[in-house]
């Protein structure tokens, strides 16, 4: 492949259009606008908000999270690890008679098994969430939007990404304004 392609791949290529973005001052309007835009046939939509806006997912069609399915496996792994560890330590590695109790028994394995299950689950959830979100990431094209810094304050931003088949800079910007967005910009990066 060419150098440019490579550059793009690793994310240091030439700036190109990322999306058209527009802002609203309250969640209700955002949801409203989101629905309208979607009805116009846009599919690659996103929103940026200071807090989770309810209804927005359906409005712009964000698929439900798969996190739960990933996590459950790790929970099971946690439990298995604990039981294997305790069994190996007591019954295999060094069989010591302690307090007349068996070399391995579920009764005294319960607490540690539970704790390790929780620990694995927690790590899976935490890391899994960031992984799915593609974070940590220090740079993102949307940061080039003049109002993006207020997405964490009091603005609710609607995003129509450039890779949307229906995307056309001027037209899409128009559509955004038409659904009541302010500060509509075509963002590059």
């Amino acid at each position, binding site marked *: 492949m060419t150098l440019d392609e490579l550059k793009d791949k*690793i994310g240091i290529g030439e700036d190109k259009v990322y999306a058209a973005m527009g802002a609203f001052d309250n969640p209700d309007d955002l949801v409203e606008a989101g629905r309208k835009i979607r009805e116009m046939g846009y599919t690659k939509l996103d929103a940026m908000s200071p807090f989770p806006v309810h209804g927005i997912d359906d409005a712009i069609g964000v698929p439900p999270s798969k996190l739960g399915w990933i996590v459950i496996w790790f929970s099971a792994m946690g439990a298995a690890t604990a039981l294997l560890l305790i069994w190996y330590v007591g019954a295999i590695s060094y069989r010591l008679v302690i307090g007349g109790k068996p070399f391995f028994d579920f009764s005294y394995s319960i607490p540690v098994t539970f704790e390790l299950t929780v620990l694995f689950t927690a790590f899976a959830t935490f890391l899994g969430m960031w992984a799915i979100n593609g974070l940590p*990431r220090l740079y993102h094209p949307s940061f*080039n939007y003049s109002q*993006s810094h207020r997405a964490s304050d009091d603005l609710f931003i609607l995003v129509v990404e450039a890779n949307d088949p229906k995307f056309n800079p001027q037209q899409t910007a128009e559509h955004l304004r038409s659904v009541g967005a302010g500060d509509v910009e075509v963002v590059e990066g």
Partner: protein
Amino acid sequence: MAVIFPKSSDIILKVAGAVAGIGAVIAVAAFTYYTYPTVIDTGYQPVQPVPYSHKLHAGQLGLDCYYCHSTVYKAAFAAVPATSTCMNCHTQVKKDSPRLEPVRQSYATGKPVPWVQIHRLPDYVYFNHSAHLSAGVSCVSCHGRIDQMIEVHQEKPLNMGMCLECHRDPAPNVRPANLVTKLDWVPDRDPREIGAEIVAQKHLEPPTNCSGCHR
């Protein structure tokens, strides 16, 4: 303005992360390896006051270990021989070899020859030579082929894992009691079989509980 980190920062972040991860793995691996008993403990070979060659004496001349380390069958400790033992021969053989000067010195003055200890267990470990020899454990099992060493070095890690291994399954290391000092013994059949028979016949039950060795 909202852009704080340049566009390239992401790839840098990724690379840095990868490097850190690999580095950590390497570090752990290295630590484990270099603290592994067989690595840190074996091969200790200090310089002795007299360059005594076990290869010559025990190997070529065929002196029995017991000739010098005479207490092994009766005591916990394998005594290092008295100077007089050396002089039994060296009053005739190599009478005035300069390398034997310290020995003659010691014999004359009564001051001991400061041999450097090689095989050393922690103070809280109570190893008993007589017990192991009477069970039929050969010198080789812990000291290696001393009869092939010009200057003795520590061959086995002598760590708790090593002790336990044998205490849990003594058969491979047990041989007829009269052969324990025969370092070059080559069994005519599977040594484990021979060992197993002896274990059964002597009812050997090596302890694996704490007080077996720690008191």
